[in-house]
């Protein structure tokens, strides 16, 4: 599904923040991406999410060499990847329902064709009563669930989550982890970037550990 070969990344003329990364993410797998702050987790997530090109090396996503793809082709690939941002990135002028339905809307689908799907997912993540609420009135946990719902609504083959439990209490963190596990069981490959050891200890999964720009994989 995703293949990195000798990937390196530097910003401008600075030192390499990621060095010689070679690994694969297989379909239907679950992995934690971890490492100390500043180790390059967010940079690696951005490479995985195709919002950045590596300085060197090869990145292949869904069997396509990302270096050879046009911007529109990258957009089409991005539709097969869901991402949950640490800061949620919900659009404040849209309701919870509209935020979650946004991926369908940009695909040009008619609202009637996805309404039930969105409503069902919103109920599944516990936001069935908040469909008409705007993000500024949602709690942190509700925002997090709305962001996750938006990331998975289009049934992505790969889900990336950047510190998804960083802003929530342990109880909610546990519920969110269960949500990711359920998604993985339904066929989505999941990568959760976190430095929360407690969270990782709750689920036996592959660990990708970044340290000083290098990646160590613990299967």
């Amino acid at each position, binding site marked *: 599904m995703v293949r990195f070969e000798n990937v390196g990344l530097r910003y401008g003329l600075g030192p390499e923040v990621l060095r010689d990364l070679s690994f694969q993410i297989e379909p239907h797998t679950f992995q934690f991406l971890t490492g100390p702050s500043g180790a390059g987790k967010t940079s690696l997530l951005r490479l995985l*999410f195709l*919002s*950045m*090109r590596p300085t060197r090396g090869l990145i292949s996503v869904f069997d396509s060499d990302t270096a050879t793809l046009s*911007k*529109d082709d*990258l*957009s*089409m690939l*991005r*539709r097969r990847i869901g*991402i949950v*941002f640490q800061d949620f*990135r919900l*659009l404040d*002028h*849209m*309701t919870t*329902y*509209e935020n979650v339905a*946004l*991926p369908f*809307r*940009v*695909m040009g689908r008619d*609202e009637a064709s996805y309404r039930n799907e969105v409503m069902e997912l919103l109920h599944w993540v*516990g936001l069935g*009563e*908040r*469909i*008409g*609420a705007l993000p500024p009135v949602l709690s942190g946990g509700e925002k997090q669930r709305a962001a996750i719902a*938006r990331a998975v609504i*289009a049934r992505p083959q790969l889900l990336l989550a950047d510190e998804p439990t960083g802003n929530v209490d342990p109880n909610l963190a546990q519920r969110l982890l269960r949500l990711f596990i359920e998604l993985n069981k339904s066929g989505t490959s999941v990568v959760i970037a976190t430095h929360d050891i407690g969270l990782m200890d709750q689920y036996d999964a592959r660990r990708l550990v970044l340290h000083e720009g290098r990646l160590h994989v613990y299967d």
Partner: protein
Amino acid sequence: MTELRMNDGTMPRMADLLPRAESPIVPKHSIAGRALIAVVAIMTFLASLTTGGVILVRSAAIAWQSEVAREITIQIRPDAARDIEAEVQRAGEVARNWQGVGEVRPYTKEESARLLEPWLGSGLSLADLPVPRIIVVRLASGVSVDLPALRRSLTDQVAGASLDDHRAWTERMGTMANVSVLAGIGILVLVLAATVLSVAFATRGAMAANRPIVEVLHFIGARGGYIASQFQRHFLMLGLQGGLIGGGLAMVVFALAGIAADLGRGTTGGDQLAVLFGRFSLGVTGYLAILAQIVLIAAVTALTSRHTVDRTLQTVD
């Protein structure tokens, strides 16, 4: 019946339960958007005033030139040896029978004398002074007149006659009018450039507030063209709103000025304005020029937003 409750046990608000009409991708009402409308409206108003002013000056200049060019003067110099009244009558007849001449009006001796009052004062007896006599000849519009032949004919048939076609005066008027119009066009170009630049920068400022929306759309897989078209449409509407307010206000100002000028006819000030600017009316061309300006400014707003989206997407990738 199952009662719907929130996680915290409270009843949900109806507004939370009912989906609203689909929100636009780009928020309609924002402080930055309103500020942009204000900038566009003010700049369009100023540019429209300048455009209207240039059109008025140009049409007035053309009117002055054609008015002066359509009028010629025959002067009969007094000579004790000749009967000046007979010469005036004879010159008048020559002019009247000439092809292309519309109206011939010989000034009486008293009228000719009155022309000198500004220099000599009133109450003086001018009977013994050799005051030349004037015949004002108005040319028919749309007909070309052979003025050199008329001049020759007059001097052949009337000894003391000379013809003044105001050529030097017309040329000076023409030069002055052209300079005025050129200066006006220069000012208009500067105002339009300032308008385009300020609208472009105001649009970029308003777009900065929308950067998170561009990023989110990009990250959920929207194509660049889709994102750009959303913003282009939104900013086109903002530009049109501002342009219509500013341009519309300028049109109202010109229309009111035209009405006021018509109402002021007969008063000293009104007549002076009429001499300077004719009917003080922009005409269809003027209003069309203002409408074109509104469209131009709205297009600048839309294209700048598209360009900013493209640049934002380049920095995101």
